[in-house]
């Protein structure tokens, strides 16, 4: 046995004596407390992402349908003008 081996044993015992009663329960409580805010943050992140996607889809839909409506209206106006010209010619 080396001279420091006994000292190592005492060193480890000294460290071990720092653990106070109820340590395991405190660890489990702390682990649960840490997990909960993370779970909430995770769900909040998911909800924010979903809202952002929905917003983007709605914006795209509004723009595309607005453009289509304008183009249809322009088409109808042209047809109406042509029909009016034809009526006057007859």
């Amino acid at each position, binding site marked *: 046995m080396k001279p420091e081996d006994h*000292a190592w044993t*005492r060193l*480890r015992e000294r460290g071990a004596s*720092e*653990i106070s009663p109820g*340590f395991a329960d405190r660890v489990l409580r*702390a682990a649960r407390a840490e997990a909960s805010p993370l779970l909430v943050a995770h769900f909040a992140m998911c909800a924010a992402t979903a809202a952002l996607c929905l917003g983007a889809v709605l914006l795209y839909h509004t723009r595309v349908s607005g453009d289509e409506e304008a183009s249809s209206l322009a088409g109808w106006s042209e047809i109406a003008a042509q029909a009016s010209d034809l009526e006057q010619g007859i």
Partner: protein
Amino acid sequence: MDESSTTTLGERVRRAQRGDDAAMRELIVSYQRRIAGFIYAITGRSDSVEDLAQMVFVKMVRALSRLKAPEQFESWLFRLARNTCIDHLRRQKLRRIFTPFAPEHENLPEPEGSVDGEELDALRHALSQIRPKDRALLALVQEGRSHAEIASTLGTSVAAVKARLHRAREQLRQHYQSNET
């Protein structure tokens, strides 16, 4: 550790992985003293042992489900403890750079004679003179970790571990003896 105790440990780890709170608690209780001793050997500060041990075990609880080989639990846990201590010492060193005179940020070893006898003081003094990574290496050996396990923990070869261990032991012996004389 014999085969039957490894099997028992493996079974307990599997139960804890399946969400069995009692098994998780048993794991903490079985290792809390060894981990605390290991942390004290690396940090040299008794006032931070319990906080660091709590950090280690909280990490263990949260990461246990990802451990693929339950039989290697022990070596995995000591790796977690070693990395937590090294990170803690690194953060303290960084804090000291920015606030060098704040007493709460000082990581000075406890004054000799303040806690135990001469023999323990000599070892604590010798450990405080060598690098934290070498302290961790020596503490891992004291915990019965094999050279192969340590090599896997440190991501290096067994030969490199043996060489580093030899150097660390030499340094420790020099400081230990100089303190005793």
